């Protein structure tokens, strides 16, 4: 090969290097951040799930029945069983909140007089089954439901918080977190009655609207 031929080959090798560089840039280049598209889908899925929770009835997921343990006394001639198949999943969660409101005085929780832990346990189990079926296959989840604290006096307040989760968060990247807010769908006098059993409070001190916040957070599996 004479000098001109060698020059051709050297030029071509340089050209090959540049093309290889361009190829590698193209292969690595992504039109969008892959996480961004995952996160967008996760946010849509979480939002849809929360919306569906407000409409889908418990009867379609096998029904929901429970026996109130408010009095902690079994009445032999009455089954006392409540069938809540007509309630939506969000309504069940809100009812659980109302039945298990906690009063905090001076930063310390007062045990409620009417604990309804069996109902709480069953609602959590029911919601866990629903969440496993809807988002459990694709994402790990955490559903947190809480009431906005209702101040009864400068020292006392009523609140509720519960969480249902499918995993332990070990510092993994969260894909999304979506929240819906709804009013506690019970009459003001009923709420007052429920609280007065635990803590004396006047009608005027009670907030006119008690808000419930339901947050669904998702993590990629």
């Amino acid at each position, binding site marked *: *090969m*004479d000098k*001109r*031929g*060698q020059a*051709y*080959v050297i*030029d*071509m090798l340089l*050209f*090959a290097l540049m*093309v*290889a560089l*361009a*190829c590698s840039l*193209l*292969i690595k*280049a*992504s*039109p*969008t951040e892959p996480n961004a*598209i995952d996160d*967008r*889908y996760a946010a*849509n*899925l979480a939002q*849809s*799930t929360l*919306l*569906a929770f*407000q*409409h*889908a*009835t418990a*009867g*379609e*997921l096998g029904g929901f029945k429970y026996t109130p343990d408010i009095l902690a006394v079994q009445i032999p001639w009455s089954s006392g069983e409540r069938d809540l198949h*007509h309630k*939506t999943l969000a309504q069940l969660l809100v009812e659980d909140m109302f039945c298990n409101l906690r009063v905090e005085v001076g930063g310390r929780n007062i045990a409620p007089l009417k604990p309804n832990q069996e109902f709480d346990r069953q609602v959590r189990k029911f919601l866990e089954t*629903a969440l496993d*079926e*809807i*988002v459990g296959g694709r994402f790990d989840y955490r559903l947190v439901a809480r009431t906005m604290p209702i101040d009864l006096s400068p020292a006392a307040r009523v609140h509720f918080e519960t969480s249902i989760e499918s995993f332990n968060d070990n510092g993994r990247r969260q894909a999304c977190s979506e929240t819906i807010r709804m009013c506690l769908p019970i009459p003001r006098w009923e709420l007052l009655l429920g609280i007065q059993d635990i803590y004396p409070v006047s009608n005027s001190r009670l907030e006119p609207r008690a808000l419930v916040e339901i947050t669904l957070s998702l993590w990629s599996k």
Partner: protein
Amino acid sequence: MEQLSVGEDLFATVIVVGLTALLIAALAHSYHAYAERKSTYESFDLALDIADQLRNDVLAKHENGASLGLINQLTSERELQIYSKLLARQGIGLRVEVRTLDGKLALAHGPKPNVISQYFSPPCSVSLPVAIAQTQASKPFGWLIVTVWR
């Protein structure tokens, strides 16, 4: 002007042409892979937008106004036809299915996937959970499955 010597210089020229062809093919392949990935992302994004619109507006119209996330089986067909025509004008094909959790088809609109598989861009699917208003008392969970293609 120097003459090309048959032998060494011709060999160099063949190498140069072969290498150039190879590199151009590699570059074209890389670009094709990039464009395909971009198209998939765009299709997925589009499918998500459409699913969002269907869930919140087109399929959520009820007698007493819209209920986000609650699919109305009765009025959906007519609404879907109008919506599909709007998308078709932009060159977007659409198939919508609503299935209950046990897989029963509650609503279907648009051509079946085996018909659309021959289009230029591969179809892209998105599924979102919804509630289906079957009767006043019965509102089961279901999946809204949206497939789009260009």
